[in-house]
């Protein structure tokens, strides 16, 4: 990885100031007794490492987050491969806890929060993962910046496609910037908002593989429902142990009750 690449990612990450984007975590959570089910479908275009052929892999994530106390939440997530490229498998479920250990509300629409999250992928070994995320919202702008570590796993339905599926542990630096397109200013009757998003991610696997991805997105958030979509494209990659991502499209929905 070049110094220039790392510098560019860090600059983008720190310059950015959010709500929660589709792939990048945020220091936000449901309050006690509130539930958020969420479904995210990802289509990933990749270059098959054995044939060099371009293929599309699909992944369906379904999760349920619940607030269990002030600043504490728990989430259960299931991931399934979709049968676009003759691969269909049910991945092991993830159990995750999140604790928001810092928050400072600076104004009506101005706040800073930090949270730590961690959990296990529930298989025979209970593979752990941990992460830290900072969120800042100021008026129409929001930023999320996170770093995480997770145990590597081995894909059991064919050549590895996703970061962390080639057996090596995975480090990730992620950032998202959200800008509220509508409404320009909240009014008494405001009950929904549209955001433009930009997400960037730098996954580094302990086998030396890394890539830097960047992509635009859109988020609609109502009082109970939210819809989101994001396109992710690689800017730079050095991948030798799994398929190279060519593009990724994520579409999601979540609700609150």
């Amino acid at each position, binding site marked *: 990885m070049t110094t220039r690449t790392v510098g560019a990612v860090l600059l983008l990450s720190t310059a950015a100031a959010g709500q929660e984007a589709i792939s990048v975590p945020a220091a936000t959570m449901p309050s006690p*007794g509130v539930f958020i089910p969420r479904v995210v479908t990802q289509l990933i275009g990749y270059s098959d490492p054995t044939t060099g052929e371009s293929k599309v892999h699909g992944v369906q994530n379904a999760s349920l987050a619940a607030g269990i*106390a002030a600043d504490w939440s728990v989430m259960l997530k299931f991931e399934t491969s979709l049968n676009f490229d003759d691969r269909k498998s049910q991945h092991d479920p993830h159990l995750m806890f999140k604790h928001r250990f810092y928050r400072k*509300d600076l104004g*009506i*629409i101005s706040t800073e929060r930090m949270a730590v999250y961690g959990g296990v992928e529930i298989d025979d070994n209970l593979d752990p*993962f941990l992460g830290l995320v900072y969120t800042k919202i100021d008026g129409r702008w929001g930023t999320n910046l996170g770093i995480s570590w997770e145990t590597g796993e081995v894909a059991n339905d064919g050549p590895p496609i996703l970061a962390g599926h080639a057996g090596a*542990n995975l480090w990730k630096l992620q950032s998202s910037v959200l800008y509220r397109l509508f409404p320009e200013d909240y009014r008494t009757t405001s009950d929904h908002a549209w955001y433009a998003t930009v997400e960037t991610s730098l996954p580094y696997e302990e086998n030396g593989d890394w890539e830097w991805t960047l992509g635009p997105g859109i988020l609609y958030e109502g009082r*109970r429902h939210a819809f989101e979509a994001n396109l992710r494209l690689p800017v730079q990659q050095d991948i030798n142990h799994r398929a190279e991502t060519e593009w990724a499209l994520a579409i999601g929905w979540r609700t*609150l009750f």
Partner: protein
Amino acid sequence: MKKQMLLLLGLCLTASCSNSNQTIETTDAPMPMDREIGDGLPQDDPTLITATSLALHIRGMSCPKCVTNAEIQLERLPGISGAMLDMGGGTFRIKVKPGAPVTRGNLARAIWVAGFTLVEIEELSS
């Protein structure tokens, strides 16, 4: 590395359980002293609310779903209804049933538990 991460995770979960025992369903519980609340109203204020219509001035509520989170926590208090937020002004308007055992501290705690900070309670009618 994996064992160290599991150990760290175990410590987090232990802390989670002990914390949740203290705070879940206890909107009267005092706020832990190590929390940063800015200029939020005290959560241990026992002063009973006598007005039947209030405006709650709130900080940090930045999105439509935040509003629903706060609305749910407020309406769980006995005698509170009709929570409506003016997002532009950061002001929740609520109705309080006469004689309801709601204190200023209860309101501050409910907003805190929802994830935000209550900075002022304005009595609109008594």
